[in-house]
């Protein structure tokens, strides 16, 4: 079998990362299995559930539907990059405060999708938050608390200088 492995250079959570990658490996597999960034979760592995959502060059994507080799020279944000040392990101704090999670499996994907939303629309309506997060399934919470947490984090981030 021909080996098509190539060396890829990216910036992940502000750090330059170099890794070897076969074209058939998804970005999700690279993050989890090669780089041990296991905060990003694998759910359906076909773009339906959003558990693997990361921000790729400023746009939230399902990392299961991106090839690792496509990430050459890309900037990637994952859940591991959100906290500032021990200080959680306002979205993470709001999720805890509002108990916007139960099993927690969908949470990294939801938070990354929400981060992308707030970067583009600082004060979205609840309806807008719901629509934006429609790509992220949660089987525990019933979503209401998630919407509330995102709206709260939006307010908090907006009030910061």
């Amino acid at each position: 079998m021909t080996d098509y492995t190539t060396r890829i250079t990216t910036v992940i959570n502000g750090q330059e990362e170099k890794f070897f990658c076969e074209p058939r490996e998804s970005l999700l597999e690279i993050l989890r299995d090669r780089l041990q960034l296991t905060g990003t979760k694998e759910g359906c592995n076909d773009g339906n559930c959003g558990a693997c959502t990361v921000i790729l060059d400023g746009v939230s994507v399902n990392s299961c539907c991106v090839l690792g080799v496509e990430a050459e020279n890309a900037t990637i944000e994952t859940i591991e990059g959100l906290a500032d040392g021990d200080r959680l990101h306002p979205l993470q704090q709001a999720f805890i405060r509002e108990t916007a999670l139960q099993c927690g499996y969908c949470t990294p994907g939801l938070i990354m999708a929400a981060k992308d939303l707030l970067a583009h629309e600082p004060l979205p309506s609840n309806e807008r938050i719901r629509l934006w997060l429609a790509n992220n399934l949660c089987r525990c919470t019933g979503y209401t608390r998630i919407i509330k947490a995102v709206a709260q984090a939006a307010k908090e981030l907006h009030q910061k200088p």
Partner: protein
Amino acid sequence: MHNFDFKKPSSVTELTTMMTSYGRDARLLAGGTDLIVGMRSGNLRPAVVIDAKKIPTMVEIKLENDGLTLGAATSCRRIWENRQVADIYPALIDSASLIGGTSIQGRASVGGNLCNASPSADSVPTLIVMRAVATIVSSRGTRTLPVKDFCLGPRKNVLADDELLLQLHLPPPPKHSGGAFNRFIPRNEMDIAVVNAAAEVELDSSHTRFVDVRIAIGAVAPTPLFVSEAGNAIKNKPVNRETIDHAGDVAMSCAKPISDLRGTADQRRDLTRIMTIRALERAVRRAGGTVTYD
């Protein structure tokens, strides 16, 4: 996933040369939301995957006096984020903003949606009523084709093994015109259309009479369907409920749906009428007209 080679050409010439040498062994990668899922399930097993997104022409959005040109690999999100495009082509935004969810739209392209040739493709009825023209290239040359003639059957399109879709061109909408797309799905988002429909209407200067009407419907035939009969049936008719209902009836009579897990043929026929009526109502409003209920 099976083992494959990965190429990322930086020019159209380099790309067409690759397509000529690899032919049907190669698959073009745009957003990957169909291709990568298909490869993982084992349905698609190309020996070579060619990433089209490093070629500027493939990912550009160009708005000029003669209309809108979209690179075939331009993501849905880049389209709906473009305010100017949204103002001039709202029907395109209707489609681009409801294919999958946000993180699908960040990758999925309108060109890929067309090439995938699914009967339920959500951007294709819109492209058809907007009179979009596909630019197809190969190392043998360039040809253009109206989008309404692009799909041949489920997952089948007109592209030869060495050809690829380079761009889509949408002419400027005429004065006093408006377009709209809508679909029926059991959920509110993130689903595949049971039936979808797009309409573009051109009204007279008083906004009370249809001058020209184009209607296209999806998920009710082997390909998205341009139903010229439905549009022609209400040309020169007054803008009112009766006229719009009539177009819905004609569109319904053109549908050739099947029953499957998403809906029965009967339900789809009914929905064709309803989705057509709703698309027309919204298109009329966007054209500056009102639908009278009498």
